[in-house]
């Protein structure tokens, strides 16, 4: 019986959906512990930091949530120090996620929320000590912008099959291909081969598909041309046809596949929670290029009036990835 791997799970700033996704794995969360020891998981086990210090080494750490405060950063550094492998779980840890949108907020809004709680002008300071709060950092960061990260499991929330593949491949390092779900078919070839042979995939691997969401989206694609940009509230999309062709902005063309096209199947455009594909340098200019190529006109005035209908390009394109995949706003 091989030695049980030690797993740590930690959430910085975010919601708890990623951790609940781990609990929910294949209805058999209890079976996790036959192969792995969950040695540090504050949400479920109440593990304190000193428990982490007592361990000699953690094999795998699943880190969720974006880095918003100094205590998030400290946690990331401490866990990196103790862990052999760090996995950024969920869009927040992988790219900054929705909390990352704050990096684009007008500076008055950001300054206000910092001063109200950190400032010295709080009126109810009593005599005697009062605890202080971890300071908010200047900007929201993804985990990879603070520490080295070996693997990424993107998504908001991450999909069961990739999460399970990540746990099995990394935590169990199992050799039997039977254990792996069909996700091995979906993973990039290099990773799938590594996993089925029982070795670790190359560093920096993302547990998702390699192609764009369009490859797994169930909608039919015809001619990519639209005259008028449509906002989701303005019309009900035809349920069979590509959303981009109907005038809705859909991030699918620059986003990694792996979710199975959940949002497009539900009638809504993709918003990129799996992050950009490897081939794309930056999703923003790529979307600009892709959407502009569907315009028909040669006339600058017509083009300008079409473009005028587009709103909040940056907030839509970088919805989940502003912190780390927007070249103009991120510092590596």
């Amino acid at each position, binding site marked *: 019986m091989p030695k049980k791997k030690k797993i740590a799970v930690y959430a910085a700033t975010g919601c708890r959906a990623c951790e609940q996704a781990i609990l929910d794995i294949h209805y058999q969360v209890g079976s996790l512990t036959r192969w792995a020891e969950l040695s540090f998981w504050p949400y479920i086990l109440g593990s304190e930091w000193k428990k982490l210090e007592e361990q000699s080494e953690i094999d795998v750490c699943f880190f969720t949530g974006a880095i918003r405060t100094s205590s998030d950063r400290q946690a990331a550094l401490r866990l990196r120090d103790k862990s052999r492998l760090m996995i950024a779980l969920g869009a927040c840890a992988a790219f900054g996620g929705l909390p990352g949108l704050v990096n684009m907020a007008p500076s008055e809004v950001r300054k206000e929320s910092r001063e109200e709680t950190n400032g010295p002008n709080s009126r109810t300071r009593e005599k005697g000590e009062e605890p202080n709060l971890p300071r908010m950092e200047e900007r929201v960061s993804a985990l990879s912008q603070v520490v080295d990260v070996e693997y990424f499991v993107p998504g908001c929330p991450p999909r069961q099959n990739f999460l399970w593949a990540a746990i099995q491949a990394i935590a169990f390092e199992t050799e039997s291909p039977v254990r792996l779900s069909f996700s091995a078919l979906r993973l990039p070839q290099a990773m799938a081969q590594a996993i089925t042979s029982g070795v670790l995939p190359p560093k920096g691997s993302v547990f998702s598909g390699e192609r764009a969401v369009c490859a797994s989206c169930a909608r039919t694609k015809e001619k990519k041309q639209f005259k008028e940009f449509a906002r989701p509230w303005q019309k009900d999309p035809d349920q069979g046809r590509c959303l981009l062709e109907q005038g809705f902005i859909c991030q699918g063309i620059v986003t990694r596949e792996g979710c199975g096209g959940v949002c497009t199947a539900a009638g809504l455009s993709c918003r990129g929670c799996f992050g950009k594909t490897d081939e794309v340098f930056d999703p923003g200019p790529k979307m*600009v290029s892709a*959407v502009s190529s569907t315009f028909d006109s*040669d006339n600058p005035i017509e083009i300008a009036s079409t473009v005028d209908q587009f709103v909040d390009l940056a907030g839509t394109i970088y919805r989940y990835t502003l912190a780390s995949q927007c070249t*103009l706003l991120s*510092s590596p």
Partner: protein
Amino acid sequence: MNDFEPKILAFLCNWCSYVAADSAGVSRLTQKPNVRIIRVFCSGMVDPSYVVKAFSLGADGVLVAGCHPGDCHYISGNIKALRRSFLLKKLLSELGVEEERFRLEWVAASEPQRYVNLINRMIEEVRQLGPNPLRRSYPSAEKEKNSRLRSHGL
């Protein structure tokens, strides 16, 4: 007064604007020195990603100059560039880079003076706007692993 010297990156198309720039040089027309030129085969070849990368590395302005509509060596490359420019400006301004820093212009091979006037005017306008507001990404330019740029003295 203001000792800020803007850095403009200019993508010039091989068949028209680059020729104009070249003749401007040969004819010794007076130009300000703040421009770095990259020769491309068509203005339509300039992927918006290059523009974004240029700004992220600290360019204060980016110019894309191509043939007049109808004169493109590849028929419609310049029209593609035209179509992209609107959304690109919108994206840039949402992220804090003022629209005026990016320009798409048409310059024929026979118009070296037009090229020079354009450049000079753009440099002054960008000087008024000030340095690239995203200059804090300069440290990242230092860490930029793409050392080919550095070895070429750029």
